[in-house]
């Protein structure tokens, strides 16, 4: 199976460790991962902000780059949701690659049939299911099943876990006050757990949550769950 990594622009620039972790996990499981370097950005920000014409070349670029692979994996529920749900509405020819583009937990659990990726992580972790993974991709408990199989990891519940953290792309700036109020409640819920780490499937939401926790002086760290799975046991 030819697996391609779609790193996403946010991860490429700000969170390369998440991408390295995805490569590590898949190679540990015996798969070869390719990184086609003509990839750039999925165009979600443009599309969701109302700039369809500006998103279109990015959609086309993605399809050209990834159409030849059996599976495309991205460490972002939100970007995968954009590809899977919105691409076919932009270009009908995208339907094929859209259906073969997976968020990491989908590739591991559904396609490769794995829940134990051989990781260890001696920390208390809580998990925030980010909205597009939760309600567009319906990831359900797939990321949690992967985390539960990690050695030495203690997973604790998060009150109001399914409530949006308030990120929402440009919403965080356009409606900064409302976004900040939502973030406040999310940070309070996180601080009420015993967790050392808050994990999620989207680094963009985690940048927002982490920025809020850091502003409050909280010692709790944010981490993409791929980085937890990428740690060796």
């Amino acid at each position, binding site marked *: 199976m030819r697996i391609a990594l779609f790193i996403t622009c946010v991860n490429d620039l700000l969170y390369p460790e998440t991408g390295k972790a995805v490569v590590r996990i898949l190679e540990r499981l015996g798969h070869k991962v390719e990184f086609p370097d003509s990839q*750039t950005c999925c165009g979600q920000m443009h599309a969701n902000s109302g700039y369809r014409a500006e998103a279109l070349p990015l959609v086309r670029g993605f399809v050209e780059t990834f159409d030849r692979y059996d599976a495309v994996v991205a460490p972002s529920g939100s970007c995968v949701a954009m590809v899977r749900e919105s691409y076919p509405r932009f270009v009908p020819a995208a339907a094929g690659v859209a259906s073969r583009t997976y968020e990491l937990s989908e590739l591991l659990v559904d396609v490769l049939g794995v829940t134990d990726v051989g990781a260890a992580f001696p920390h208390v972790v809580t998990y925030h299911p980010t*909205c597009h993974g939760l309600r567009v991709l319906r990831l359900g408990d797939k990321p949690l099943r992967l985390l539960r199989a990690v050695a030495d990891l203690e997973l604790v519940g998060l009150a109001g876990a399914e409530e949006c953290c308030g990120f929402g792309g440009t919403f965080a*700036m356009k409606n900064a006050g409302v976004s*900040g109020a939502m973030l406040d409640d999310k940070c309070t819920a996180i601080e009420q757990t015993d967790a050392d780490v808050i994990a999620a499937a989207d680094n963009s939401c985690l940048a927002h949550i982490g920025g809020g926790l850091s502003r409050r002086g909280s010692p709790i760290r944010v981490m993409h769950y791929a980085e937890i799975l990428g740690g060796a046991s």
Partner: protein
Amino acid sequence: MSTSSVPTGRGRLAGPLPFPDAARRQLADAQLRVNLRRATHTIRDKRARVVAELPDWEQLRLAGSAIKADVLARLPELLVQFEDAATRAGATVHWARDATEACDVVTRLVRQTGADEVVKVKSMATQEIELNEALERAGIHATETDLAELIVQLADDEPSHILVPAIHYNRHQIREIFAGRMGDAPAGLTDDPRALAEAARLHLRRKFLSSTVAISGANFAVADTGTLVVVESEGNGRMCLTLPQTLISVVGVEKLVPTFGDLEVFLQLLPRSSTGERMNPYTSMWTGVTPGDGPQNVHIVLVDNGRSAVLADEVGRQALHCIRCSACLNVCPVYERVGGHAYESVYPGPIGAILSPQLTGVTASPSASTLPWASSLCGACYDVCPVRINIPEVLVHLRQSVVDAHRDRPSPERTAMQALSWVMGDRRRYARALRAARRGSAPLAAALRRRTVRRLPPPLSGWTAYRDAPLPVGESFRDWWRRTR
């Protein structure tokens, strides 16, 4: 009046403030946030419990959505069918293109009866067209008989929720309103909910017994029988719909269902989604006039007020499926923080964000052109909507309409979006930009000795007002890949 273009909606649908400003004003009210959080979470949980009881909930939603799509596809034909059936049953049907016409018709009908007081059943359509204000100008006083609507009316306030218009008040505040503004409030009124309800009951009973004219809306209008349906919880509606001689119902044209049998679907979807009840306490149905029983003078005013314009939009028209259950408000994280008034329309929350701008036109007001952004696109509304309105999809579609409508004006945002698209459209430009971003921020990161920054200039200041921002440092993923592979 010109008939060449589709009329847009008027009335209580838009406001002078852009949503972010209206929201900021509401966010400052700490008591409001406490009240809203408690109320929305209570209804939200109740809804989730009763919806989980039904194994065929998803099928019901699909059926509800399909019936409404059918109604929209055959709207003119079904409206005429409804008019025929209702007329045959003894009702008089009136047509109103917009709020002004609808208010004129109702005012004229009330005047003809000689009454200067009317009782009202809670209705979104009459709030939308600002009927009470129009009647007041004609010297006719309308009394709202739904408890929450009465509270809002006494307080001289605006409704802030579709189902619970006074959701922004707690019981201490309600006691204050009653004691201060309800002429016949009992002395020594406490804030015990039962005492408050009793005071309202006595106040309203006098109105029910003395009024000869009632005004209602309708939850459903059945095309094949000409029947109107009102569901409610307090019995005030039943009083209004049966006691007075004259009954005038103001009905949005999208309230139709094709057949009486279709009610089976909606009478399951609506109560579970709205109040979290298995069945609503009062379901009133009437078909024209029944001689010797109930109102003998029955009028129905069918109102467009922008709905035809919404119908013309292929993506946006699904907003007309709405049965006003308010489930989307109760799960919305934005509504929960800012309340209904921030939406500056009788329709708040997620449905308001897609319906109000469409009814008036997206460029008609500062609120209309900013409401499509009043959402993090979290999708909680779409999940609960009993008629499966894909609210996030319509929000994005309307954002596009606003952006497209403003293409002839200079906009820093558009310039940035175009530049980003240009950079990201090509791998070499993109790789160079990544390197430039890291080089640009490296001195800052070195000086700060950390990878976060607490303050950024506009437009990124919106980010750092509430959260620290990450800085790119080290090596991008693609550079790492090239170096190590």
